[in-house]
């Protein structure tokens, strides 16, 4: 089991301003699954992804990642777990604008305390895997949206995390570029990665093996897809 949510709730604010974003969610995701999370706006998708990604902790309930209960860890431990086990891909790419893409990809390894020689070769390798091996010194603003998202994916997988988390990875891209990004995620899944992605679009969700639908902070449905879509859209 890669991860398990047990009756997880998340409430923002307190007293009269209390907002229940998650109201008791239980979910198991095995290693090398390809899961899409769908649901209307405000249904709690990002909140759940934040908890899965150890950026936040549940208000109640348990979250077990790789067999370790991480529902109640210190900030420092959570940072360590994010560094080692989670690879994030964001809708808005979230690259460091002032640094070149090589440094962007290298960064998680720097935080892991890896020696320069080793981390440089890993960073180069990751960028080669996403087809940007010849643009190492480019800055994010010199790249197209699709290329930026590929850098983000390279950065997410450079530390060989247990799970790749993608919150609307194609949200800021056109259909063609979005399709390219999806085929890249498909390939990473086929190479053995666990992929969890959030999306609004049914077309994108069709790449996954399993679709979890949220509504008002609860899981509405959890279905397998027998024939996931492959390749370009």
């Amino acid at each position, binding site marked *: 089991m890669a991860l398990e949510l047990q009756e997880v709730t998340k409430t923002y604010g307190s007293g009269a301003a209390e907002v229940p974003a998650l109201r008791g969610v239980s979910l198991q995701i095995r290693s090398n699954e390809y899961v899409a999370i769908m649901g209307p706006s405000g249904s709690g998708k990002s909140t759940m992804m934040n908890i899965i990604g150890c950026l936040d902790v549940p208000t109640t309930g348990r979250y077990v990642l790789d067999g370790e209960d991480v529902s109640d860890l210190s900030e420092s431990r959570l*940072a360590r777990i*994010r*560094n080692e086990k989670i690879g994030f891909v964001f809708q808005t790419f*979230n690259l460091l604008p*002032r640094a070149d893409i090589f440094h962007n990809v290298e*960064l998680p390894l720097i935080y892991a305390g890896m020696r320069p020689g080793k981390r440089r070769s890993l960073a180069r390798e990751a960028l080669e895997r996403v087809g940007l091996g010849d643009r190492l010194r480019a800055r994010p603003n010199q790249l197209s949206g699709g290329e930026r998202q590929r850098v983000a994916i390279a950065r997410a997988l450079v530390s060989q995390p247990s799970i790749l988390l993608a919150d609307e990875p194609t949200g800021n891209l056109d259909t063609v570029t979005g399709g390219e990004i999806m085929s890249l995620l498909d390939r990473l899944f086929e190479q053995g990665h666990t992929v969890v992605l959030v999306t609004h679009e049914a077309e994108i969700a069709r790449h996954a093996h399993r679709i979890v639908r949220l509504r008002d902070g609860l899981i509405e449905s959890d279905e397998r897809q027998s024939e996931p879509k492959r390749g370009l859209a």
Partner: protein
Amino acid sequence: MRIVQQMIESVRRAGAAIVANKLRGGLTTLGIVIGVVAVDTTMTAVNGLANNFARSVAVLGSDVLYVSRMPWVFQGTFFTFRNRPPLTVDEAEELERRVESAVAVNPTAHTFKDIKFRSTVLENMDIVGTTDRHMLVSSAVPELGRFLTAPEVRYRKFVCVIGSDIRDRLFEDIDPINKTIKIGRFSYRVIGVMEKQGGAGMIGGPNFDAMIYIPIHTMIKAYGGERRDFDIAVRARSQQALEDLRYQVIGEMRKIRRLSPAEEDNFTINQMDTLVGMFNNVMGVVLLIGMLITGIALFVGGVGVMNIMFVSVTERTREIGIRKALGAQRSTILVQYLCESAAICLFGGLLGLLIALGVTELIDRLLLPASISPPIVAIAIVVSIGVGVVAGLIPAVRAARLNPIEALRYE
């Protein structure tokens, strides 16, 4: 290992951030620049003055007592000293006979006269009446010719020995030896030039290089001597013997002046210690002013840097969120921003050091010998880094404490 890696990364990022905000960083560091210039210049000035003073002390001798009517540094009012009888040559000679443990006893008196060589006139110069024993109580030696001899003093010869400034101003390139100059209405033959001494002129002390030495009896004969105020220099065999000598001199002077036990001394024993005390006071004031300017400048600079760091943290909130999502620890972010702040200040400090080098060069040329020593460079570096760390602390803590989700959502 991990922390070292992260620090290297932080310093690299800090450098990049400074380059990205040259102007803003440059302006904010102005306070740091001024602070470092102030601290370096103060230290340099104090060093220079101290060296200069040490040379004067060497000239006057730290093993010499001066019996005078007035103390060099007043305690109490002038009136308590005004009615004291002046010291006389007779008293000096009497003292010399009585104090056998002294190396030498030498009376001097000062008068101020215009001096003239050909058409050049120097007004109101310090004329020192002294004896051949001057050579025994002072470390100064003639660089040209010789000093006064005992017969010249005894037989009231019209000869003089001039200080190096006088030579420069009166003779320029001409060889002064055996030339005749006028001191007041009388003509003197120049027999020697003293070597340059530098001295306490800077802090209002005597400038030995602008003095002219003539035999003391010539002075009395030419310019009168009845009410002239003499100083009597008494040199001890060693610095250790100085205190004993002091009591002995006080005792003998009281006997010479027939003071009853109830009467207070009507003369003063001056020694280098008094000047050292005065010098330390002057230095204290210089240091205080320097430190005040430094403190204010560094404070203003520090506040500026703190402000720029707050701006920087706010501007890069999202970046901090990204770093945290990728696994940066609080301490990593903290160190990153402290390094950045320190680097900005260090940049200012190095700039200040450069300016201080220029200022020191100027002081060296115009006022007194001065140079920037390695400790001063070290102070500049340590102070600027220190201000950077202190000024960056609160912004850095704020950055480190940012909630990653909120930081990532920041527009």
